């Protein structure tokens, strides 16, 4: 019935394929000690570590980019379907669409990271999160996946900016969470003295740590902006910019959590392992804010 659903399905399978390829790439790429001492930038690996591993990595990137294009196409198709039905273009008007948009943003963020820093190992984690987000969306019952007309309160141009900005911040925090997880794996392996094999293909700890921090410094202002746009919308729609509705409060809680992280980073000792654990914790809070609040707590945002 809806063409976009086919494309969303296809996105799901492509992200799964990309994830498998990235994991395969990590296994294939087993640099020896001599080739990859700890702390060595991973973009300078010797070519001898397996030409086919490199090819696998390239295929993984191609599949990811293709998946992202299909995801883009799916969102556009959905936007036009929405336009026909209810006169609003925004393809993030229910939980399903919001999830699909978040995975789109996560994958876009990852592709930019890979192009800029030439690190492929991150894909196994971050593409993984994008895949899980898309998968969780696909698991929603059919009635959540279709494009029902919007309720009057949502039918406004504010939906374009408030929702897209907030969801993009979630994607940035997802990236930070993935990098945090990656840091913890690598750090554990190093503590156990495993300098070869699977984990050696990861970038060095300092790089993962800094990238994770960077993702948070992107998500933090975005979330602030998203919350403020929401406050402006609420003021315009209901006559109050802040009403301590569960979603509002939870987004503020998430923002405070990352605010604490950014301040903690200023004092010594809040790098590395602690910061990585914190980033994973923060991401779980984002997941609760995004999913848990909609399904567990009642409030003005319970549109799912």
């Amino acid at each position, binding site marked *: 019935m809806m063409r976009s659903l086919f494309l969303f399905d296809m996105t799901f399978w492509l992200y799964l394929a990309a994830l498998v390829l990235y994991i395969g790439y990590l296994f294939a790429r087993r640099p020896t000690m001599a080739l990859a001492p700890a702390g060595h930038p991973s973009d300078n690996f010797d070519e001898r570590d397996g030409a086919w591993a490199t090819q696998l990595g390239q295929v993984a990137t191609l599949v990811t980019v293709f998946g992202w294009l299909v995801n883009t196409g799916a969102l556009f198709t959905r936007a036009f379907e929405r336009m026909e039905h*209810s006169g609003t273009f925004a393809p993030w008007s229910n939980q399903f669409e919001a999830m699909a948009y978040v995975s789109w943003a996560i994958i876009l963020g990852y592709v930019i990271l890979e192009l800029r820093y030439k690190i492929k190992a991150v894909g196994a984690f971050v593409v993984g999160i994008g895949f899980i987000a898309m998968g969780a969306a696909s698991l929603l019952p059919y009635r959540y996946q279709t494009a*029902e*007309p919007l*309720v*009057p*309160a949502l*039918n*406004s141009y*504010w939906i374009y900016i408030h929702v897209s900005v907030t969801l993009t911040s979630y994607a940035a925090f997802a990236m930070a969470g993935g990098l945090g997880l990656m840091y913890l794996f690598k750090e554990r392996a190093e503590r156990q003295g495993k300098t070869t094999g699977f984990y050696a293909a990861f970038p060095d700890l*300092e*790089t993962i740590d*800094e*990238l994770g*921090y*960077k993702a948070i*410094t*992107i998500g*933090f*202002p975005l979330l*602030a*902006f998203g919350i*403020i746009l929401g*406050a*402006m*919308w609420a*003021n*315009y*729609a*209901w*006559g*109050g*910019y*802040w009403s*301590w509705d*569960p979603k509002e*409060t*939870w987004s*503020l*809680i998430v923002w*405070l*959590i990352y*605010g*604490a992280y*950014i*301040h*903690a980073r*200023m*004092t010594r000792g809040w790098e590395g392992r602690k910061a990585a654990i914190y980033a994973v914790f923060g991401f779980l809070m984002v997941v609760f804010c995004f999913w848990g*609040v909609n399904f567990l*707590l009642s409030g003005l945002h319970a549109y799912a």
Partner: protein
Amino acid sequence: MNSQSDALPTEPAPPRPSTPGLGWDEFSRELVDFFASVKLAIFLFLFIAITATIGTVIQQGERAEVYIQEYGENAYRWFLRLGFTDVYHTWWFTSLLGLLCVNSLTCFYKRFPSVWRSMKQDKVGVTMAFVKNLKQQAEIPVENTKESVAQSLVQHFVSKGYRVLAKNEPGEVTVYATKGVMGRVGAHMAHLSATVIVLGGLLGSYYGFQEFGVCLEGQTYHIPRGNFDLKVDKFWIDYHENGSVKSYNSTLTVLEGGQAKATKTITVNDPLVYNGIWFYQSSYGDAWDQVEVARINIKDKETDKVLKTVDLEWQKEQTLPDLNLKLSITDFVADFAFNSTEKKVYSKTIEHANPAIKLVLTERDSVQATPWLFQQFPDLFEIKDSKYQFELVGYKPRKFTGLQIAKNPGINVVWTGCTMIVVGITLSSFIFHRRIWTKIVPTPTGVVVHIGGTTHKSQIDFNKEFRKLTEKIQTFKA
């Protein structure tokens, strides 16, 4: 935000005058240090986050019965004591927010002057030890003259967008380059924003108001706070093809001294604004004390046969000559209840749970009766003197429009604070304050460039930049 993060090697501080005991100077310094500390900021961020969750788990502002039923009486007593039924307005929660403002203001007071100085002041006069102690540092021998290397270096910095200061002395040339101080200014702007937002909020809560009005079509209401009247011309609902509500709309007219001043059709997301008072389309529903039309069955008492079905309009008498009757509806209640002390009928709730209308009938120009007809209990009463039995079989309720009426004189202050926070944290997230010092010292074979740099954020990008810079310096050969 940007505290000790620079990790600048400290130049020996002038010894503090050692007054014995706790003088006021020490005390106030300690106080400023405490309130400006990053630790306090982290504690407040997390503590506010944790306590804010309470209000999302426990329903806020409910009736006592609801809490007692769900949590028990004992727990409810504690809820009241701790303010858990209205967490966000308790003295302790607002104090936490106030403390956050104090924290950020003190931080501004303590740290902004140094940022200001670093924007204004010459930082060329540093020692060699200072350069060598910086986090990123290198020594690069170059076969060239001091002046030529300095020239190339300054050119390179300028091409990269740095602000450069240089000092040529007989022994050495010192070059100081800096970029991105706005990142630190941004952090301070974000700090000030907390107080601005809170002030805007206070202004709104002292001088503003927010009310909910249930209004009926055709009625005029006085708005005392605006000293004008509001007439609801029309209310209607638009539907999508699949039957779901597309929008609800009210046409409103503002009247001043009986004269129409403004008319607008409002809908959700499109309010009417008049004299700083905003009228929002907030909800709608079925009125509980009025109907538009009611349908009555008139039955013959003896045969129990329906003689006629009539639709009666609200408070409009209808004459039925064939039955020799006059009928009108004078009252309606959605959920019938009777106050026996005041002898008054009223609606128990706003739900249409037990609807009843009051019928006034005149039969054969003599019988006057005012029975209540219940939709759910048609045989409850019988009118003795009448040969008819009346039944309420249906009605069309009048819709009310729910209007939110609000005035908030603090709103623009709040938006100013919001702009400050977004601009502030965006600047501080994406712009890094970088400072690089170089000392070019002549040697028998040329010069040695001692270079050291620091950033207050984004070490990874700075490291890359620094590496490229050292590579660049190696090319400055004669």
